[in-house]
C-alpha cells in the first residue's frame, strides 16, 4: 500500500501541470508532417504505465489481482514493442530523398 501524503499530492499536481504545459509547447512545434509518428510515439511513451503494473505485481494479495496486473503488463508490453517499432518504421520513410 502506497501512502501518499498531502504534500506529495501538491508536488505531483505541480509536476503534472508543468509537464502538461511543456508537452503542449513541445507538441506545437512538431511539424505537421510528423503528426502520425508523433501519435504512435506518445502512445508508446504513455505505456510506461507498465511500471505501475509491475509495482502492483510485487505483492498481490490474491490471484485475481495478480491476473489483472499480468494482463495489464502483457497489454502495455504489446504497445511498447509495437509503438516504438512502428514509429521508427514510419520515420524511416521520411528520410528518403529523391536524387535529382
Amino acid at each position: 500500500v502506497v501512502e501518499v501524503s498531502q504534500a506529495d499530492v501538491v508536488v505531483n499536481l505541480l509536476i503534472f501541470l508543468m509537464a502538461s504545459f511543456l508537452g503542449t509547447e513541445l507538441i506545437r512545434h512538431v511539424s505537421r508532417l510528423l503528426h502520425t509518428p508523433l501519435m504512435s510515439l506518445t502512445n508508446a511513451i504513455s505505456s510506461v504505465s507498465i511500471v505501475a503494473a509491475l509495482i502492483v505485481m510485487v505483492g498481490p494479495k490474491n490471484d485475481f489481482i495478480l491476473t489483472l496486473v499480468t494482463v495489464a503488463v502483457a497489454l502495455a508490453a504489446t504497445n511498447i514493442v509495437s509503438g516504438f517499432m512502428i514509429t521508427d518504421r514510419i520515420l524511416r520513410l521520411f528520410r528518403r530523398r529523391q536524387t535529382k
Partner: protein
Amino acid sequence: MTELPAEYLYVLSIVLFILSLRWMSEVKTSRLGNWSATAGMAIAILSTLVAFQIQRTDLLVGAALVGTVLGTPIALKVPMTAVPQRTAMSHAFGSLAVALVGAAEYYQDLPKINLFTVSVLSAEMILGFLTFTGSCVAFAKLQGLIPGRPFVYRGRNVVSLSTLGAAVAMGVYLALNPTQEFVLPIMAGLALLFGLLLVLAIGGADMPTVIAILNSYAGISAAALGFVLDNKVLIVAGALDGSSGFILAVIMSKAMNRSFANVLFGGVGSRITAGTTGTAQAARSVQAYTPEDVATVLEDARSVIVVPGYGMAVAQAQHVVKELADVLQRRGIDVKYAIHPVAGRMPGHMNVVLADAQVPYEQLWEMDRVNPLFPEADVAIVVGANDVTNPAARTKADSPLYGMPILDVDKARTVVFFKRSTRPGFSGVDNELFYLPNTMMVFGDAKEVLTELVASLKRRGGSRQKV
C-alpha cells in the same frame, strides 16, 4: 515507496521522454527522438524491476513474451494506409491496461483505502474503460468491420450522457463508500457502455479528431495512476501524452471549423442526402472527361498541384499518383502535393501514406503554404478528397461546411477531379467544384483511371518544349 536509486533513474527517463518530443519537431532529428524515448522506457522498466523484486518471474516473462509476439508483427506488417487502425488499437490496449491496474490497485488497497486514492482511481477507471471501448469502435470503423457512418437515433445524446452521468455517480458513491466492492463492476460497465455509444455515433471522417481525443484520455488516465502510486515518471509521461492528444485534437477540430462538442455529439455525416441534392443536381450538369482528355491538358501544364484524400488511400492509388508525378516531372512540370490537416483518418495520415509511396517530403505542402500557389497553378488534381476542396466553405453561409478552411483548388486554371461516383462527400454536401466551367470530372476507380492517364502520357512521349 520507491527505492532511491530507482527514483533517480526515473528522472533520467523523464528527461529522455522530454528530449524525445523535442527531437520529434523535425524530420532530421525525429529518429533520434524515437530512440531517446525507447531508451527512457527501457530505463524506467529495468530500474523498476531492480528496485522491486517480483516473485512471479514466470508470469512476468510470459506477459513480456506475449507483448513481443503480438507487438512485433503489428509493427512490421501494418500497411501505412492502416496506421489509423493500429493507433486506435494501441489506444485500446493502453487504456485497458491502465484501467486494469487501477482496479487491481483498488482491490489491493482494500479495506484501508483513503478518499483521495479511491476518487482518483474511480476517475481513472472511468476514463480508461470508456477509452477502451471507444477505441475498439474506432478500430472497427476504420478497419471496415462496421459501417463508418455514424449510428444515430433520436435522443442518443441524452442516452449517452446519462450513461456517463450514472458512471460518474457510481464513482462518487464508491469514493464515499470505498468498501462497497460491488460498485466497481457496475461503474466499469457503465463507462464501457458510454465509450461504445459515444464513438458509434461519430462518422469515419471525424476520426482524426476522435483518435486524438482518445489519445489524450489514455495519457491522462496513465497520469492519474501516477498520482495514486506517487510515481513521477507516470505523471510526466501521462501528461505529455495527454497534452499531445489534446493539441492534435484542437488542430483537427480547428481545421474543420468545429468544436469538440460538435465532433463528439454532432453526428455529422449521418444525413440521408438523396432527397434534396438529387433534384438540385439534375438542374446542373457535370462535365465528364476521359483520362485521354486530361493527358492533353497536362501536356501543356507547367505547374501541377495534387490534392490527395482518404479515397486515394482506400483505392490504394498512392503509388500510381507518385508515378504520375514522376512522368510529369520528367516533362519539366513542377509537382506539389497539397495536404489538408484533416485529410485521411488520423493527424498526418496523408503524409505517411505518400512517404510510403516514396514521395519526397519536400513536395508535401501544408494548407497555409500551398493555398497562395493555387492561382498560379495550371492544373489541380484532386484524388479521393472532396469536402476539403468545396468552395461552398468560403462562399455559402448556409452550407454546413461554411467557415471550414479549405484548399483553394477552384483557383487553379484547370481542376481535374477524380471521383468514384457522383455521390457527395462525407458531410453529405454537394461540391460546388463539380459544376465549375474549369473543372474536368473523371469518374471511375482512382487507381484504374490514373493508370490509364499515366499510360496515355507515356505514349505521348517526348518532353514538352521549354519556352
